[in-house]
């Protein structure tokens, strides 16, 4: 039954989550560093401003994780907290909780990442398909080399170049941030427009690079598909070339392309994180960057865990959708 497969995939998902959580738990402890104490020592050394609530925080920390308790107990309570998405407090921004900070940043990242991924996938796939069609206009051939060259470079590199050219020299777009300082967040037209303006450059860095990749991949799939027997037979049936192109070639080439999307999600995310850092875009990437700078272990762990879970979920959804596209996948044991 279809449920059999779904159940297995969910199992894999849970496994991924568990591994992520475990890694998150053990790796920092490997180095023997205790993040909170280290931070406290650092601040004590500075001799200056000490968080007012530090005492309370240390007591809380001790109570929660009970460093005097055996490791396995700590591990279990950590897992329990993780399931409830409670990642403790942010060391650097106490008394803010980690999941608060993540919740603030996530919409920005999803907005940027979601729209750019979908856009570049759709655009790239469409372009790639056209490039493979003999009936396509000649000038399209000249699109290939630049697309090719572009897709080899990392997103954030293009981002840097774009910032300089379009934000600094020409001042067409703002240089960084999610919205102008001093603007009031809300669903007003001015704010939305402000957000869009700020999002254009980061989005462009991702889309310009990623589209090329998808286009090339799709073209490759199309060429392979065009060599298949059923396309030959379709021609022998005297079908119109448009019919062959869409229902025979495209429809079949889309399948491996979608699989490639599922596999590429991790890479796209890594690239997007760096783009956010470069642009100071208030998404997960920037929060992560600051957390690294300030040695805020809880925040880092919280972000990494959240991202892994989110990606696992996205992959799971894509895996579940795939059979709808490809009738050959049937989970029925015949």
């Amino acid at each position, binding site marked *: 039954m279809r449920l059999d497969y779904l159940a297995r995939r969910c199992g894999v998902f849970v496994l991924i989550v568990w591994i992520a959580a475990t890694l998150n738990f053990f790796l920092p402890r490997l180095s023997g560093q205790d993040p909170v104490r280290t931070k406290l020592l650092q601040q004590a050394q500075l001799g200056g401003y000490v968080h007012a609530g530090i005492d309370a925080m240390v007591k809380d920390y001790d109570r929660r994780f009970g460093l005097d308790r055996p490791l396995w107990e700590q591990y279990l309570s950590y897992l329990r907290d993780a399931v409830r998405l409670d990642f403790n407090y942010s060391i650097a921004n106490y008394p803010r909780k980690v999941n608060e900070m993540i919740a603030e940043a996530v919409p920005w990242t999803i907005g940027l990442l979601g729209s750019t991924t979908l856009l570049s996938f759709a655009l790239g796939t469409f372009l790639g398909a056209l490039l493979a069609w003999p009936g396509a206009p000649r000038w399209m051939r000249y699109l290939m080399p630049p697309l090719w060259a572009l897709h080899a470079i990392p997103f954030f590199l293009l981002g840097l170049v774009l*910032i300089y050219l379009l934000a600094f020299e020409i001042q067409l777009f703002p240089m960084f941030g999610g919205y102008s300082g001093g603007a009031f967040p809300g669903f007003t037209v001015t704010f939305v427009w402000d957000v869009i303006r700020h999002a254009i450059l980061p989005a462009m860095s991702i889309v310009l690079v990623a589209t090329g990749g998808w286009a090339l991949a799709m073209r490759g799939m199309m060429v392979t598909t065009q060599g298949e027997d059923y396309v030959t037979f379709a021609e022998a049936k005297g079908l119109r070339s448009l019919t062959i192109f869409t229902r025979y070639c495209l429809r079949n080439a889309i399948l491996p392309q979608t699989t490639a999307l599922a596999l590429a999600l991790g890479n796209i995310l890594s690239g997007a994180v760096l783009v956010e850092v470069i642009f100071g875009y208030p998404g997960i990437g920037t929060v992560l960057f600051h957390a690294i700078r300030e040695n805020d272990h809880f925040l880092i762990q919280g972000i990494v865990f959240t991202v892994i879970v989110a990606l696992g979920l996205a992959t799971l959804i894509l895996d579940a959708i795939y059979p709808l596209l490809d009738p050959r996948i049937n989970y029925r044991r015949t």
Partner: protein
Amino acid sequence: MAHAAWRYVRRNLSLVVGIVLLGLLALFVGIGHLVVDTNKSRPLSAPAIRPPSADHPFGTDRQGRDLLATMVAGTPLTLRIGFIAGFLGVGIGSILGFVSAYYRGAVDSIIRGIVDIGLTVPGLLVLIIIAVSLRKGLTVDQMALIVASLAWLNPARTVRAQVLSMRERGYVEVARLSGMSGPEIIVKELMPNLLPYLAATLVNAVSAAILASIGLEVLGLGPIDSPTLGMTLYWVNFNAALINGWWWWWTAPIAIILVVFLGLFFLTVGLDEIANPRLRRVI
């Protein structure tokens, strides 16, 4: 002779472009080491924030590094991380992928499971966790090892797929039937067919490793004292060089990184063509 060479160039333009680009880079580094004093890549060796001039052809940065020296010293460091991590990754990955495909069974399931899960997770994040946990002043080589810890996943998958498809084809069976021993089959039949794929995978792995290391460095998790390309970008970001208009600071590393990635990319495409004769164009 020359005619045949020219024909090959036309057929496999990518390979040639890739080699040329990387060759130029090697020249830059090689000649650079002879001509430039790499000690100037340390902070406070030159007046800060100077645009390019005769004294400092690439200008200087805020900490007083001569940028030409930095590029000459840093490029091989970045490349080294890439190569070490790439080779290690491909080495381990090939062995595991091979074992997995050749012996099948439980071993295959375990390795395949690890690889599949490992590839779903965004590599950069895992690297971040590792780097943050070990953050006691990383050296270049330690960076390489960290990156290598994930670099073996992709090669394992590729090699496994290749070996599996080679198993399917008759010649392994034929070799076994004609009395060749296991290791003999591996060396005489499988390896020669595997080599082009290995080469392509290697270049891919190096490229990915360099990207990962630059990513880590830009986030500030790299070897702080090294003038690697990624660290230079980190300082660019840190000092808001973009806003301040110190364009020379970031032009050089970006240009070099571009050459590196484009060169490796064209090389990959060129090698792919050798590996897969069906892609060859007929002139």
